[in-house]
């Protein structure tokens, strides 16, 4: 593990979009993926360019922003959508909805604010944005999916809609606001902090190339909406099996410490989405008594590392929210947020600034308080992947996950605010 960490920390080891997009094996689709969905995003920068970009973007997920994200964006939207969607029981007397749909809408609101999109408050706007977000995320990672031609075609159409309906109006709105700032008609502090503010002010010189700035924004649909949705849905999914085998833990289903450990287990077992992390050596790099030669590709299988019995115990391949913390100092989620230079930008949104539970834990708590269960009448569906690239197991990426709420009372629904204060 030490060798992997030192390798991924090395400035000699770079992250190239061409490798992630598998250009060598599919030049046509690979070139589309690189040009339209990958090149220009922070995760493919190196050295000082990466550090200055990351340092700049870190401002958007500082502690005060995390409170706003959790308490003013995500949790109120969870409450609002639950009340809206569960106002009436269905024909079977059940209160149900699609958990993927719910989570995507919640995290889309958050991501829209993070990017700085405007006019996204209506249901219609979120519907339109959601119709773009899924295809954009799929376009980002189509190298790992079945029917790449079709995925890329749909993703390109979605990107065009996104740029016309969302990106350009937001850019123009921010340009107007910053023009007002420059004329002394508006205080800079009144312009909402967002990726778009950085883009319009060219806080990073690379944003002068608008195509690359657009890619930075579309990457967030995979990196923020997709991963957040999957982490919540998969925790609900994995907890059902755990409660079946461990009924004594049902009493802990709204305990934030228990849910945080459950979420960490989900991230350990089911993140990241890609089966392995790609890197390229930009210079000879010594690893112990071996050398990774300049130009050599590296595939780091986080999935293997996160199932190491030596680190996580004999049942490392199983979901166990009661698992003791690893004795080697690794966190419970293992390397699920990444290792070395490139690590998940939204980690503190998920875990909280102090690691005691962020938005996702409170969201899970609200869902659990309402008695969320998989809907036995309708099985979940997941994205069809190119399984030849997945070495251990098919980690599902749910596209629909119908649930029912067995403790939902529309006259007295649970409130995220109450769970936050409890």
């Amino acid at each position, binding site marked *: 593990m030490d060798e992997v960490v030192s390798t991924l920390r090395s400035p000699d080891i770079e992250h190239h979009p061409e490798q992630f997009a598998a250009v060598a094996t599919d030049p046509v689709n690979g070139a589309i993926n690189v040009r339209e969905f990958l090149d220009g995003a922070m995760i493919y920068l190196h050295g000082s360019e990466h*550090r200055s970009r990351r*340092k700049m973007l870190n401002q958007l997920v500082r502690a005060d922003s995390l409170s706003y994200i959790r308490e003013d964006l995500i949790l109120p939207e969870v409450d609002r959508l639950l009340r809206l969607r569960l106002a009436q029981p269905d024909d079977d007397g059940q209160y149900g909805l699609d958990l993927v749909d719910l989570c995507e809408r919640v995290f889309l609101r958050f991501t829209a604010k993070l990017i700085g999109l405007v006019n996204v408050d209506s249901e219609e706007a979120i519907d339109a944005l959601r119709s773009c977000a899924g295809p954009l995320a799929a376009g980002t990672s189509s190298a790992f999916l079945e029917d790449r031609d079709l995925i890329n075609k749909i993703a390109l159409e979605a990107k065009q809609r996104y740029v016309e309906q969302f990106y350009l109006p937001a850019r123009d709105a921010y340009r107007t606001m910053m023009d007002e700032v420059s004329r002394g008609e508006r205080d800079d502090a009144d312009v909402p902090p967002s990726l778009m503010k950085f883009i319009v002010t060219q806080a990073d010189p690379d944003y002068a190339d608008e195509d690359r700035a657009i890619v930075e924004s579309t990457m967030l649909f995979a990196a923020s909406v997709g991963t957040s949705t999957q982490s919540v849905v998969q925790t609900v999914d994995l907890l059902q099996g755990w409660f079946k085998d461990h009924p004594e833990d049902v009493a802990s289903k709204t305990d934030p410490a228990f849910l945080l450990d459950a979420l960490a287990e989900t991230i350990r077992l089911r993140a990241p989405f890609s089966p392995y992390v790609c890197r390229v050596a930009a210079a000879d790099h010594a690893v112990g008594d071996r050398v990774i030669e300049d130009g050599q590709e590296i595939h780091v299988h986080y999935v293997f590392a996160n199932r190491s019995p030596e680190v996580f115990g004999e049942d490392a391949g199983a979901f166990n929210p009661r698992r003791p913390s690893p004795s080697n100092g690794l966190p419970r989620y293992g390397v699920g947020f990444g290792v070395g*230079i490139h690590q998940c930008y939204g*980690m503190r949104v998920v875990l909280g600034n102090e690691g005691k539970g962020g938005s996702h834990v409170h969201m899970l708590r609200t869902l659990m308080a309402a008695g969320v269960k998989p809907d036995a009448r309708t099985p979940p569906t997941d994205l069809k992947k190119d399984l030849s690239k997945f070495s251990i197991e098919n980690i599902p990426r749910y596209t629909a996950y119908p649930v029912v709420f067995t403790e939902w009372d529309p006259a007295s629904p649970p409130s995220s605010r109450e769970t936050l204060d409890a």
Partner: protein
Amino acid sequence: MPRSRVANAADIPPGGLRRVEVDGQALCLAIEDRCTHEDVELSDGELLGDEVECPMHGSLFNVITGDVCGLPADIPVKVFKVDRDGDELFVDL
């Protein structure tokens, strides 16, 4: 514990960070200049009140106590006693 002169106070702007090296030890006055999370120079980060934000992954450390104030780091940084004598700053290593 050796005491070393590291800088003039006037060389450090209010609210700024300063990297110095003493006997091969990198300091970001007056904590170790190394994020305990991923070995990144904290002196390249942002000073936010009493906290320094790592420029790479955003870990936060209290520059007085060395305590972790924000993920992803979970190990405090070393702190060093700083003395001022006139315009000169000294650190006890």
